[in-house]
């Protein structure tokens, strides 16, 4: 029999520490749906997705029952729409978004990602039309999400795309004014966007992926926080070093990742598709006890954003990767610790009490995944200032050869310090102050491409 203590430890992760599998994401290649006829494109999309994804939700529920492991979200990611719908204009792309929303609803999944494009070097005409469609497409639909890659270590930063992203985000917020600009929570701007990310809003089924694949995103901040608290209680803070803390995180990350690996393998088998990757990212929720900020507090950072926060986060991120990589046959996606302000109650609290500023948050994103995520900013922040914030985050990713991203939400009519609440997993927060507005407009207006850094020359 498995050791009784081992059974108890596994049970505790689920019963007391909020462990779940955050998402099972079925990646689908839909390139074959391309058609110059809009009606044919819409019909093909529907047939292609329904034929392969209609069993996803039920198969996942069966596994939830068998293993007693909650799976919070069931999702679909698809080939970037800018390539599938090449040649179509803005209005047609809005129709495509509506069709995806409808089909996703029919399959029962929570979200569908891939309404995006890769424009890191240059923008195709369709990608430009896709940008223009986003305000209407994202405010009219419930389940559709998008990710746009505007930069990579290999080619640099497409500043024309960055500027367009700033303008588009501003327009999206205005188009969805009634919902405090919630549409912006469904768009991620990336540097070095991964092809197999299972997490929304940036999930995309990228180039080089197969016809259909199951990718898993785990969770588990609560489990790691409790493991560290127990370690301190049992051994005593005076008898511990940061190496001990890193070791504890590693061991715990191993166990969390194994849950994802098990679910992924079983689900892929039952759906008769390939098992892709486990994304090791620690994904918090607004629930108390399920927060990255609380892990930092357990590591001795009393106020998130205080000096030492970046170093603590770097240790956490590294230990999670080491433990997780050993637990899974194939690690991918974003694989790091997320610090989404609105989705993490402790981070949101740190914003409210002034200890966490957007500048410190940006510094922290240089050592973890993924970037300035779910950051509400004043509604009157100019488009070019939004673009400049994006450019900074992209530069961190490009120079450090890692994925970074932004999910900025200019909340219409609201100022720094006011509250915004999207509810559910999207959470709530005070609006973060953006300083030195318009201080970099000329830099953004130059446009063109920031050349690839020297580290891109690796051959």
């Amino acid at each position, binding site marked *: *029999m*498995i*050791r*009784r203590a*081992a*059974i*108890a*430890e*596994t*049970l505790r*992760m689920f*019963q007391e520490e909020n462990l779940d599998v955050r998402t099972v994401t079925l990646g689908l290649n839909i390139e074959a749906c391309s058609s110059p006829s809009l009606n044919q494109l819409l019909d093909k999309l529907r047939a292609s997705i329904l034929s392969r994804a209609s069993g996803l939700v039920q198969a996942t529920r069966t596994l939830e*029952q*068998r*293993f*007693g*492991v909650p799976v919070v979200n069931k999702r679909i990611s698809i080939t970037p729409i800018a390539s599938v719908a090449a040649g179509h204009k803005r209005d047609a792309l809005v129709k495509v978004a509506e069709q995806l929303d409808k089909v996703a609803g029919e399959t029962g999944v929570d979200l569908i990602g891939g309404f995006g494009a890769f424009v890191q070097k240059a923008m195709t005409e369709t990608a430009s039309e896709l940008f223009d469609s986003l305000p209407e497409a994202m405010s009219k639909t419930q389940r559709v999400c998008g990710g746009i890659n505007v930069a990579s270590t290999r080619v640099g930063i497409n500043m024309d795309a960055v500027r367009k992203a700033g303008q588009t985000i501003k327009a999206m917020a205005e188009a969805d004014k009634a919902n405090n600009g919630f549409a912006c929570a469904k768009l991620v701007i990336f540097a070095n966007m991964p092809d197999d990310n299972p997490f929304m809003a940036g999930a995309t089924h990228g180039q080089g992926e197969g016809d259909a694949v199951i990718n898993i995103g785990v969770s588990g901040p609560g489990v790691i926080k409790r493991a560290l608290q127990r370690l301190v209680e049992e051994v005593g803070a005076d008898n511990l070093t940061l190496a001990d803390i890193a070791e504890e995180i590693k061991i715990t990350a191993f*166990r969390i990742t*194994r*849950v994802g*690996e*098990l679910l992924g393998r079983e689900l892929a088998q039952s759906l008769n598709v390939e098992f892709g990757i486990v994304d090791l990212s620690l994904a918090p929720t607004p629930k108390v006890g399920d927060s990255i900020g609380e892990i930092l507090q357990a590591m001795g950072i009393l106020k998130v954003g205080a000096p030492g926060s970046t170093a603590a986060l770097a240790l956490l991120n590294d230990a999670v990767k080491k433990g997780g990589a050993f637990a899974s*046959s194939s690690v991918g996606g974003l694989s790091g610790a997320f610090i989404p302000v609105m989705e993490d109650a402790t981070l949101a609290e740190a914003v409210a009490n002034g200890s966490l500023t957007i500048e410190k948050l940006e510094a922290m994103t240089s050592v973890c995944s993924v970037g300035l995520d779910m950051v509400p900013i004043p509604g009157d922040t100019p488009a070019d200032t939004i673009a400049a914030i994006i450019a900074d985050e992209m530069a961190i990713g490009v120079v450090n050869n890692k994925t970074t991203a932004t999910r900025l939400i200019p909340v219409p009519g609201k100022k720094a310090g006011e509250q915004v609440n999207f509810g559910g997993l999207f959470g709530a927060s005070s609006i973060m102050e953006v300083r030195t507005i318009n201080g970099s407009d000329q830099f953004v207006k130059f446009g063109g491409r920031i050349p690839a850094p020297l580290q891109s020359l690796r051959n």
Partner: protein
Amino acid sequence: MALQTSLGAEAAVTMIPLHPTNPVLPPTDRYILTATGEASTQVIHSLTALVAERGGNFVDFSFQNSPAGVSFVAELDLPIDLALDQLQIDLQHVGAEAGLHVRLQHQRLFTATNEIAFRRLG
């Protein structure tokens, strides 16, 4: 033949070939049943009876009674075609009446989270 010779003509011996019959057991999956909570009487009997009634077979179990409450951990085989969801509901119902939190989970979950080699998960 030696026996027939010694018994004489009035005796007959019929040779019946022996085909050992292995009982055909239905295919099963291994699960871990756990029950934790306040100490109470009769509940273990109720849980085990319920499992037995659905064709389950206990292969190991342990029970601990401490000031913090009781903890029952059992390993059991269940027919693969069993209505698992219904058994889980019924077990939880029986447990809840006695103030116990009951869970029935596939063994592979515990192996996966506690053993290094994934290939041993079966």
